[in-house]
């Protein structure tokens, strides 16, 4: 039963943006992690989206597309080398490899992803209001 119009399209986008938010939050949390489970510094992760064709629209048959997460990949760019001999993870030459997380980029990503998520959320809220109003016809 598809009672709220466009809900499958909006749900796909909400899921995708939520995943992106989660990954950005993880990047920010690990901005200073110099030793991860595999022994090396944390490498930031990137979410890539892809279009998915959902169905045809009612009446016209125009195909509707939404977005979904294609892959969560690791950014292989090597992180900055900082000279800090006192650091527990410093190498023999006294440098520490920092995670390749740039906080300004991540903050911008966070804001963009939040706004996109909120926009889709308001779309589905309004769709629900329209459906509820339809139920009140004639009452």
């Amino acid at each position: 039963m598809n009672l709220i119009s466009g809900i499958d399209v909006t749900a796909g986008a909400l899921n995708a943006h939520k995943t992106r938010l989660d990954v950005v939050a993880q990047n920010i949390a690990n901005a200073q992690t110099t030793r991860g489970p595999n022994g090396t510094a944390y490498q930031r992760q990137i979410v890539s989206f892809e279009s998915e064709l959902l169905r045809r629209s009612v009446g016209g048959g125009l195909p509707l597309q939404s977005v979904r997460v294609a892959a969560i990949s690791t950014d292989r760019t090597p992180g900055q080398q900082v000279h800090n001999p006192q650091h527990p993870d410093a190498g023999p030459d006294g440098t520490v490899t920092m995670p390749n997380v740039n906080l300004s980029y991540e903050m911008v990503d966070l804001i963009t992803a939040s706004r996109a998520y909120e926009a889709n959320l308001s779309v589905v809220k309004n769709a629900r209001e329209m459906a509820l109003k339809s139920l009140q016809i004639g009452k």
Partner: protein
Amino acid sequence: MAPALLIRRRMIDPIFQTDNYQLARKLLDAAVLRHEAIATNVANAETPGFRRLDLSPDFATQLKSRIAAGNFAQTADSIRPQLSEDQTARSIRPDGNTVEIERELLMMNRNVVEHEFLSEIVSRNIKQLKLAITGRAM
């Protein structure tokens, strides 16, 4: 059978066949469909090359010509609203995506109010008929 058909057409259907009532029903279809277009546009706000969708302009022109011709109530079923790519949208991004989130959200707000207005028209017609029949506001 023929007299019964005539009487039926004279009884209930003329009330439900008025132009305003049928027009409101058709426009309700269009409002729900337009929301689907807006939902798709907002979901694809960052998809490269995506062109925004909206109601086909020929739906409005067809409606107007049928109303002017005066035979709207009988032929209402043949006009159906459809979605198509909005040809008038300009691309403000280098990748050809024509969706502007703020415009979409504003249009969505307007669409919701339009939907409420149309629901109110339909509702009022039905309630008026009920009042006329039973003498009580059911």
